[in-house]
């Protein structure tokens, strides 16, 4: 029963998993064949470049505007292709800088949550016994864990800021990684390779890092990408509600929240940031799906 739940949750089938990264060239060839994945990948590269190069490519300062030139529709005001917001700030610039914030929150959060989660999962799976029971007991709480509610309370108490947002998300994001890492470890733990390593007296920590970790890297990467997508969505929602990124900083969710008051007469304020959130999350999901099949040929039939 426990195994069943895991399989459902991660969409990674444990029985078949001998996942390994193939040569990069082979991956690239596969990517070109799958047009949807290629498209998603290119989109992601563009969003990444846009975020990294924001200071160079953003046409205006995202936080300063011309108050006399506010709420201009796309194309109406020269120099503002996607229009201006309620303070006369350039929409293009805010979208570019907003993506930077969303991606930053997504990645930093998941770097932390995956590091903690994978470590604890490895520990639980490898050590077994009481350690396993305690760690997995914590993980099981996650099912009844009103994550969004706790994140809201957390941010309310500590005050909304990017750092607190990351902390709140990482706080309840590590469990999925722990669960996955543990389930993978268990299948390897008793395998011949680890047995052999143990037999010749290699220390447990070394066994975990050298022999187990590389073998489970592929499914962890897939989950990493999925989690980044989830956190970007969650950041948007928290910022939309006013408990995330604070003005004057731009974030896609905050832009939707700020534009809400004006959207009947200024649709562009919410339509563009919403599309960008959806597209980024979509691209990350498609990419993650593709990664699952690309590194694990046995699953190919399943993802159509």
């Amino acid at each position, binding site marked *: 029963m426990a195994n*069943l739940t895991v399989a459902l949750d991660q969409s990674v089938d444990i029985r078949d998993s001998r996942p390994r990264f193939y040569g990069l060239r082979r991956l690239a060839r596969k990517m070109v064949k799958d047009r949807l994945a290629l498209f998603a990948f290119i989109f992601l590269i563009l969003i990444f470049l846009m975020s990294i190069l924001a200071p160079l490519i953003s046409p205006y300062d995202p936080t300063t505007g011309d108050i006399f030139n506010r709420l201009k529709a796309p194309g109406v005001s020269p120099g503002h292709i996607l229009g201006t917001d309620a303070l006369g700030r350039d929409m293009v610039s805010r979208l570019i800088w907003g993506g930077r914030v969303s991606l930053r929150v997504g990645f930093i959060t998941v770097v932390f949550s995956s590091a903690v989660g994978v470590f604890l999962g490895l520990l639980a799976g490898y050590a077994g016994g009481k350690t396993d029971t305690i760690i997995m007991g914590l993980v099981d709480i996650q*099912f009844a864990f009103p994550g*969004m509610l*706790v994140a809201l*309370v957390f941010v309310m108490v500590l005050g909304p800021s990017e750092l607190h947002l990351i902390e709140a998300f990482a706080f309840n994001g590590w469990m999925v990684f722990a669960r996955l890492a543990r389930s993978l470890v268990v299948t390897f733990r008793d395998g011949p390779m680890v047995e052999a390593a143990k037999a010749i007296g290699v220390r447990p920590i070394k066994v975990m890092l050298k022999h187990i970790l590389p073998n489970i890297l592929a499914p962890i990467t897939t989950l990493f990408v999925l989690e980044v997508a989830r956190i970007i969505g969650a950041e*948007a929602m928290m910022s939309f509600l006013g408990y995330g990124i604070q003005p004057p900083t731009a974030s896609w969710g905050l832009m939707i929240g700020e534009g809400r008051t004006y959207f009947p007469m200024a649709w562009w304020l919410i339509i563009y940031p919403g599309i960008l959130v*959806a597209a980024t999350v979509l691209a990350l999901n*498609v990419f993650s799906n593709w990664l699952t099949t690309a590194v694990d040929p046995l699953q190919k039939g399943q993802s159509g």
Partner: protein
Amino acid sequence: MAQYILRKLLGAVVVIAGVSLLVFILTRVIGNPVDVMLPLNATAADRVRLAHQLGIDKPILTQLGEFITGVFHGNFGESWYEQQPALSVALERLPFTLELSGIAMALALIFAIPLGVLSALRPRSLLDKVTSTLSMFGICVPNFWLGLVLILIFANTLHWLPTSGVGDWRYLVLPAITMAVLPLGRITQIVRTAMLEQLREPYVVTARSKGLLEFWVVVRHALKNAGISIVTMSGWELGRIIAGYAIAIEAVFGLPGIGSLVVDSIGQQDFPLIQALTFVIATCITLINLLIDMTYPFFNPRLKFK
């Protein structure tokens, strides 16, 4: 069986207690609601007095003790803002959210199951591709944003449906659709995956060779066996609606459910109410999980409760 249920219940109690304790620590250690409740011209003396009235000037352990004793009597204290028992304020809002999320889940299932089954029957067909793409979109579109866009189109522009609030059934259409989109996407995917797996199993072939009507092969055999995954996913989605999606969606549509109460109580730093809400929401999710566990033997009699 009884032992199994007992163990599950015990686990549920631990979870609810853990979440409640966490929220207690978060709110009482750092939060300060006094200023929010007083007018801008209140004096320092006003502040001290109110803190005393609310009992937040006591040592934290005393507060914790009082809190725990209270909980055992079903008493979470009075909502500081509404001046009524916090638990009943929270429970008052629950039926609405349950009703709305029930409708949304029904909507999601009605479409997700047939779409998922058909896609699994014809993998890589046009229908499958369209379904996969749409369900992917459903998963990725931020639902609070979708709600705003639907209001913009159907209420503001076309005037077909009301903008927000409660009233006759027309008021529920947009919120229910908004709420259903994400579960619809997820469940469609899980139905498809589970059905694909089941249809490959030998028993399906046997059933077909016995000359059973294809509809019954699919529904009675394959779908029933895929049922565990479908029910599990639906339960999780229902939990996610109550503890997550409802917060933003009810705020967008101005609905009197538990989600909008969460946002309000957090804005007002109404500790007892936040505490009661956490309790109610965590209990809901645990109960749903428990119910799901109970249905497993129906789908697969071989699974006995351990």
